[in-house]
């Protein structure tokens, strides 16, 4: 692993961003985990874009798997980002999940917009969060806050030894 060339301020900002996004993913995942009545079926069935695909994955044969994968995905991505564990995998997972949420209800002109707390045209918060994860993917910030650093150091030590 390359050492960081960022200043302390740059590095801490990236870490802060990583923790916030991780927090967001983890909380969503935990709420769904503890609420057995939760299902993504309604969200998927009301999709305004790529309708056949979302209707297909919300069918009886898939929905349980889809729901479980979503909960596991949210928690894994959230925990990864907070702990600094497998950050790049967490970023990819997070981007994939967000892409699905974005594509089911994209704020494209002419498509029906569901209830939202703001006004969006093409760009919404899902898309921005995806972009933020892309930044984290490109500028890994494990160095000063994360378990991975611990493992990395160990690995390096073993290699040296």
């Amino acid at each position, binding site marked *: 692993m390359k050492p960081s060339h960022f200043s302390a301020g740059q590095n801490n900002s990236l870490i802060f961003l990583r*923790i916030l996004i*991780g*927090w967001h993913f*983890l*909380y969503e*995942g*935990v*709420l769904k*985990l*503890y*609420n057995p009545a939760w299902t993504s*079926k309604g969200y998927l*069935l009301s999709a305004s874009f790529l309708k056949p695909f979302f209707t297909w994955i919300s069918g009886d044969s898939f929905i349980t798997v889809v729901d479980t994968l979503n909960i596991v995905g949210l928690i894994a991505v*959230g*925990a990864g980002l*907070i*702990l*600094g564990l497998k950050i790049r995998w967490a970023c990819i997972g997070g981007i994939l999940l967000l892409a699905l949420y974005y594509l089911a209800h994209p704020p494209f002109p002419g498509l029906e917009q569901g209830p939202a707390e703001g006004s969006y045209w093409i760009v919404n918060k899902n898309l921005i969060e995806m972009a933020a994860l892309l930044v984290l993917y490109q500028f890994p910030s494990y160095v*000063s*806050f*994360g*378990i*991975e*650093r*611990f493992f990395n*150091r160990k690995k390096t030590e073993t290699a040296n030894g």
Partner: protein
Amino acid sequence: MLKSLAGIPVLGTVWFAGAKLTTSAKQEKQFLLETLNIKAAAPPPTGPMTGNPIRLGIIGFGIRGEQLCRALGFATKQWLADMKAAAEKNPNDTRLKEFLDQENLNIKITAVCDIFDVNAERVIDSFSTPENKVKRYATHKELVSSGDVDAVAVPTPDHWHAPIAMDAINAGVHVYVEKPMTHNVSETYALRETVRSNPKIVFQVGHQHRQTQSFLTAMDIINKKTLGHVSLVTTNTNRNDDNGAWQYDIHEKASPETINWDMFLGNAPKVPFNKEHFFRWRKWWAYGSGLSGDLLTHDYDRINCLLKMGIPASVMASGGIYTHRDGRNVPDVMQVNMEFPDFSTGGSQEEGKEKGMTFVYSATLGNQFDRGTYLMGHDATMELGNMISIYADARSTRFADMIKDKRIDPSVPVYQYNPMANATDAVTSATAKYFANKGLLWTYRDGKRVDSTFLHMREWLSCIRNGGIPSCSINEGFQEAISAHMAGLSYKLGRRIEWDKESEKIIAKPGEDLDAALLSSGDKVVV
């Protein structure tokens, strides 16, 4: 190394907060549900459909006749082809699949009577089998006395309901008659007498919403006195399309040669052949009953099945022909207030403070804004449709402490019942949506969509086979018909119409002929 593990407390905090919030929300919901103690009641059991097939005659195969036959398991070739095409076009359109999945009711359609050749031939063409050719009868009397039928369905124009039902019962044939049960006051008593003196005959009026799952749950809510004293019930009809205003299609083959016009007129005033009268009969008092008989009856019976409030002490109605001035003489805008001064659903306040209720029916055929049905009590309001929502009242006595402790928010339902959870619907039109929300098209059993007319006819057939009295028999039908006729009379006569409970009579002024007034061809009777 310690620094690198600093993420763990963050993870733990977020996890704990999420788990705690969800768990306490669940506990709070559980607490509310236990307090309200509402149980989604099981549907009334109906017996098996085994034994010899019941031989059924269909009298009238118009729009409703075709729907009843489908509920019985018989669809025309045309409908099957249309639905197949619709399902291929839209995979969410499950009407054909639902029809094919419907339980076999073990009946045979053996006879038809329809005075329009095209309709009668459609029945014979679609429902005949090599071993059972459907036989056509020129008159209903010949059909019921033929010995070929055990039971008949009577989806005819309103002015034929009671005459046919009485002839059938007197011939020993079971009857399923469409609503309104009767067309005028006097035949309401005559039909009741006929049913009462033939106790072996199973008689059902076609108010199929009685089978709606949400209504059964609503009954439990009423019985648990959740709403407190209900002082006002508001119901309504809002439609804004030609079909909803009874502007049905006129068949191209309609002519004096294909329609037995004298038979259509029956007891109605003699007028020359008129295709519009034949196909759009709901627009004239001579054959139909306007908003009060046609649509108020649905709403009245929905509430009567919940509250069992019976016939109102008095009724006042007003309205006019304001949206479809096309030669019809029944109103298309109508407001009806029914008074029940001695009725109570039970209250939470001191004894004697609360008694009496008004039932309001408000209708227009010129606007389709969905207003919902509300039962408004001192403690809570129930919004009733295929779904149920209950809102605690901010000034409720029963919920006062819980509102004060912020455990109940009056702007959020304290209880919601959605039998269609996990089911999706392809609702076809505005009128279909209107009917669906009133529980008139379908309901749900174990999360599966079921035609409520099917359940209602199944209940009738089960009583024929296994004994018992159907849920909308003569007493319920009598209350429905009298209440509707009181509304029609108030509209026609322009005054309050009162009911004498002791003598079971609508109070008429000396020399007044109520039936003549009700069915008169004028919009309103000048007194």
